[in-house]
């Protein structure tokens, strides 16, 4: 759990409730022995400067290229895009829905990440994906704009599953981390 800035505590609560052990990453050594990494919501400018300051950018890129699962929410999506870490072949429009007054919550059906009931999606000054490369799978859309995308073992969401009471996204992520660890596929 990247802990430079943002709502990492909410992610940790969700991880705990699906039976996964989460820890805070503030410096490169904290990444050792992790089976997966979450880039939280927060201010992407602040987090990206923190990653540079703490020598974490290259290590996170390496972490992702080894095939270890990564989940990015909101600011996390922006950080995973081409302009920053480049772990996803996407370009992102920041604050795409507008300023805070335009922030909203909506139940959306996104079978690719939460099969069954609609998922309570909370969008806070959220980004959307503007354009993506051939290896990127669009998992969810809102009004024609991709809001959930996957490439390999990296998943990025425009919204905040960590602010909802729904654990399905975190449950699936924890399962993927266990799978990656057990297969020893690094």
């Amino acid at each position, binding site marked *: 759990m990247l802990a430079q800035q943002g709502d990492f505590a909410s992610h940790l609560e969700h991880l705990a409730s699906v039976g996964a052990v989460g820890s805070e990453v503030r410096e490169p050594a904290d990444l050792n022995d992790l089976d997966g990494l979450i880039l939280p919501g927060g201010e992407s400018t602040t987090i990206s400067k923190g990653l540079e300051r*703490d020598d974490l950018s290259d290590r996170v890129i390496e972490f992702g290229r080894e095939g270890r699962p990564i989940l990015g929410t909101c600011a996390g999506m922006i950080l995973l895009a081409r302009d920053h870490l480049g772990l996803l072949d996407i370009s992102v429009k920041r604050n795409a829905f507008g*300023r805070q*007054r335009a922030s909203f919550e*909506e*139940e959306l059906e996104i079978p690719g990440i939460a099969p069954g009931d609609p998922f309570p999606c909370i969008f806070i000054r959220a980004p959307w994906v503007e354009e993506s490369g051939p290896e990127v799978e669009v998992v969810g859309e809102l009004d024609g704009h991709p809001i959930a995308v996957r490439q390999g073992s990296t998943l990025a969401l425009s919204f905040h599953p960590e602010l909802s009471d729904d654990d399905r996204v975190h449950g699936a992520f924890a399962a993927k981390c266990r799978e990656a660890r057990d297969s020893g596929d690094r």
Partner: protein
Amino acid sequence: MAERGTFRVKTGLAEMLKGGVIMDVVDAEQARIAEESGACAVMALERVPADIRRDGGVARMSNPAMIRGIQEAVSIPVMAKARIGHIAEAQVLESLDVDFIDESEVLTPADEANHIDKFEFEIPFVCGATDLGEALRRIGEGAAMIRSKGEAGTGNIVEAVRHMREITGGIRRLGTLSATELPSAAKELGAPLEIVREVATSGWLPVPLFCAGGIATPADAALMMQLGAEGNFVGSGIFKSEDPERRARAIVEATTHFADPERVAAASEALGDAMTGIEMSALGDDGRLAERGW
């Protein structure tokens, strides 16, 4: 159906600001320096608290043109202050599309009895509190974030420390009470029983708790995070210091690495002079801003 302005959407932005530093800025140039230094948001105001203190007179909402200039200069959230109880100033700020409104004792209060009904707005509000009762009253009125009410513009952390300890200590005390004892506790706190019950059960406020007032050094920022603040507001402490950009970076770094004294030490080196501080006893009764609001 998309729903805007719900409690979850309002507190959602407060959640996004956690672990970060919100900096007071008076123009677009300062806003850019703040963003470049890693601020997670800026507070747009005409004069920083140290100058409001010096100049005296009535302190009001900032000029909309100045707020717009700052909104155009940065991509991080922009907050602005309305006077306590000044509904029309808050409406103006909402129409300007600011991201967060601070109903602030730093400005001259407009209503001596009533705070703004914050449920009437789609924009989230942050309000100051000196103790748990005050925090819960503000949450009862719809605040989406609480901050301490440390004496702004003094560069003295002592009041913010008192408020943070009052609030977190009050939360712990509620946790020791039985369900039968909570109504009486709510009466003593002067706070809504429903929220008192929620805090007693969860062990924390239903909204994020930040520190504001008196932070002047990286160590001040680290102290407040250790005392339970989930993020820091810094007012005069940055742009009233000798080297604002470097101090801003250092306070951001100390807020993230608050539990690592070596990092706080490294951040504290070569900063130039901090702002000149003011001892509380030098303020006199009229100079105490924390006593505004109830």
